[in-house]
């Protein structure tokens, strides 16, 4: 077993200059447009600092070019959207649904998609509160989840071009996002609202409601799948009208098949990350892999090439017993996606690794079955975290902890968000009672330059110390 070292941004910059220029120049997004100078995205990190992502100076990275390419692809997304618009592609925003609408949308020709929701990263990456201040002026203040940053982005038009359409899901999704969508609607954005019906839990007293149980998935009430399929078929009609292009069944099947393969690649990477004796991929890069499942960062074909590379890398490392950290690193299960990537970097620097996660996007990670593509998407979507109860989400987390043999759970709360805060006590109880592992929950401090707050650092340090002490006690007993 040998340990790899993460690199800082300076080393990334130097190593980038050592790469084969032809290899770098051959990497493009939107390859269907042909190789254009603008569509090169594998750039030195100084370019991304130029975009304003100041946080990059404090992060540590996987040194392999395949992982750096993934980082570059993600950081280039905003630029890519403007280029898509210039190239005549339609730009569509998706909100509040993870894993369902993107595969359906990519069935339309010449479209790209993005999630304004993921703008909650931007204030942290840019170490700036500008977007949050703009949101506050529209009535979404500090008692709203950081997704409110999207309000600022919608009203400034500097983070993405004016979308041709935004398909915003409401219902059993997220009230914070619904509020953001309303602001975008008020600002004149062309919106289409979709419904996410609620998935109920069976209970002994529910005698009239019929439930359907599928192995390994949360049960759902009868009729829910069919209703969701109706909603998606209606989406094709409405989106077709809005985009001025109908969609064919072949294209739908093709798009869903691409996402099916993409999810299979992501699933294998996640399994290897959880099971390899040494961590084969840092937590931030693993998070980027997971979020590719939602919309493939707007370019499914290129995203697939990148993830194939990452999978190859992770396989190689697992087979050779190479990875980051030490074998006795504390195994953590992480709940809620941390908007500040420095949190992951920090825990990895202090002798821990992330072996399992529940980032509220379970619906995008569920494997897609063969057969009717719309039904396949709907079926997978119904396994999601947002549309069910807190108890169902807790069950998923408990199962994940057992599967990954995690020794502790970190819940990074987004203060004021309509899911994180209220679900934390329920998840904590379930984890402590059923999985028997300790839980640390904290509110992610607001974006600021510099290291993460010393309070959070101290709490994380004490938590990891307690887990190590527990290990000792368990061994003794």
């Amino acid at each position, binding site marked *: 077993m040998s340990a790899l070292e993460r690199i800082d941004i300076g080393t990334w910059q130097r190593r980038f200059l050592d790469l084969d220029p032809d290899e770098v120049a051959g990497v493009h997004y939107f390859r269907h447009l042909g190789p254009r100078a603008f569509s090169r995205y594998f750039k030195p990190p100084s370019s991304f600092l130029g975009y304003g992502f100041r946080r990059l100076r404090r992060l540590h990275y996987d040194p392999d070019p395949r992982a750096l390419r993934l980082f570059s692809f993600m950081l280039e997304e905003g630029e890519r959207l403007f280029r898509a618009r210039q190239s005549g592609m339609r730009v569509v925003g998706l909100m509040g649904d993870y894993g369902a609408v993107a595969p359906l949308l990519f069935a339309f020709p010449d479209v790209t998609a993005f999630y304004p929701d993921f703008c909650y990263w931007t204030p942290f990456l840019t170490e700036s509160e500008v977007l949050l201040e703009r949101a506050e002026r529209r009535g979404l203040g500090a008692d709203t989840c950081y997704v409110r940053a999207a309000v600022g982005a919608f009203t400034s038009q500097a983070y993405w071009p004016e979308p041709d359409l935004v398909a915003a899901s409401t219902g*059993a999704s997220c009230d914070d996002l*619904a509020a953001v969508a*309303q*602001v975008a609607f008020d600002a004149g954005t062309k919106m289409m609202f979709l419904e996410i019906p609620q998935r109920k839990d069976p*209970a002994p007293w529910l005698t009239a409601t019929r439930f359907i149980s599928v192995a390994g998935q949360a049960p759902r009430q009868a009729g829910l799948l069919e*209703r969701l399929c109706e909603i998606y078929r209606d989406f094709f009609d409405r989106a077709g009208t809005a985009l001025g292009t109908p969609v064919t069944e072949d294209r739908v099947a093709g798009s869903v098949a691409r996402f099916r393969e993409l999810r299979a690649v992501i699933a294998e990477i996640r399994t290897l990350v959880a099971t390899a004796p040494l961590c084969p991929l840092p937590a931030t890069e693993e998070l980027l892999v997971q979020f590719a499942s939602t919309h493939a960062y707007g370019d499914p074909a290129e995203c697939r090439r990148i993830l194939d590379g990452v999978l190859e890398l992770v396989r190689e490392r697992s087979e050779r017993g190479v990875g980051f950290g030490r074998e006795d690193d504390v195994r953590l299960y992480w709940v809620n996606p941390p908007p500040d990537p420095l949190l992951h970097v920090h825990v990895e620097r202090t002798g821990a690794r992330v072996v399992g996660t529940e980032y509220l996007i379970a619906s995008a990670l569920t494997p897609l079955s063969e057969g009717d593509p719309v039904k396949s998407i709907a079926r997978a979507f119904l396994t999601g975290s947002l549309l069910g*109860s807190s108890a169902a989400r807790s069950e998923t987390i408990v199962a994940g902890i057992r599967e990954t043999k995690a020794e502790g759970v970190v819940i990074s709360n987004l203060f004021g968000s*309509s*899911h994180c805060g209220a679900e934390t006590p329920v998840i904590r109880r379930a984890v402590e009672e059923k999985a028997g592992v300790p839980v640390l929950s904290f509110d992610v401090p607001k974006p600021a330059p510099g290291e993460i707050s010393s309070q959070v650092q101290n709490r994380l340090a004490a938590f990891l110390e307690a887990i190590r002490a527990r290990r000792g006690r368990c061994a003794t007993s």
Partner: protein
Amino acid sequence: MSALERLREAQALAAEGRRRDIADGREVVGTFSPPVPPPELIEAAGATPYRLLENRGPDADLRGMGALGRDTCSFCRSVLGSAILDPPPITCIASGTVCDRLRHMTDAWPAATGLPLYTVAVPRTREVPGQVPVLAEEFRLFASEISSRTGTPVTKTRLTEAIKRGNRCREVLTALDELRRESPPRLSGGEFLDVVRASHALSTSEFLELADGLIAKIRSREPMKRRPVRILLVGPTLTDGDRDVVRMAEVDCGAAIVGDLTDSGSLGYGEPVSEDRDPFTALAEQVLAHPILTAPLKPSTAFRDAFRRALQDGRPDGVVYRGVPFCRPFNSEAVPLRELSPVPFLDLRVEATGASGQVRTRLGAFLEAIEARLHFARENTR
């Protein structure tokens, strides 16, 4: 004792009445938000709806915080915490999924109180076709669930009768609302809220019996001597211990709440339900058009239309928006409503556990400024 006092007393004693019902083997269904599930469905199944608005102060808030986290709206924290401290007189709970926080709060009830929970999934947009039949089906399912508890099936006849009684309640409340809107009004906002609160604590039959003659009594009252500053109150549900803003405005500052856009007030029951159509469909239609439910419905065009109507009907001199921290569907509407309002608009955030002196100062200054504005307008007219 006046009809109003009789209603207030009956409301205060409603919990005892419901405990007697439970002892007699009747089902009492606790609800949180009047439009969903419709009280008519519960009554048609032979059970009694009982709206849970208890607020047992800071202790209850702390208990609620323990179960739901501190960054949850204090309405949810107070209601759940109060139930943990002192179990309410109910045999089960029924709730609509009108917002995330209510969803999480109701999810926590079975574990916290040991009571069964019935959830009614409420659509959150009207843009998707087929929402009315889907909601009507959801109501049918809910009716079957409650019927299986009571043993009384919800027949079309029983449900239509319940709808008729519900509509008579609405008539009473609408008539009182009109008296409140008069200039000067014959009924204060606080009194009106008391009547609505009673209608939520009592069965429709009890309420209609006690409210008999109420309208005539109020009509025969002398109107207020001077024209008070007229206020439109907007915001989420008021709990029982959360009338501070109303009291401050009316008792301390002499204003009159002549209209409201809250489900604790004139929207407590919504518009009349059609008595001629399939009753489940009629209820679904009514719920999806309910002005309060339209706040979480996206886009919130219908909610803003309801605000415009309330401005037109109440002719207020100012709008007091009383929001609760972390109440996303309502708080996100404060800025657009302020922009729509042709009259001064005060945006307050008040915890359901009670308003502070700071709120009193802001409210007082706001009402004084309106008073001065009206005075100058009168002087200029002369």
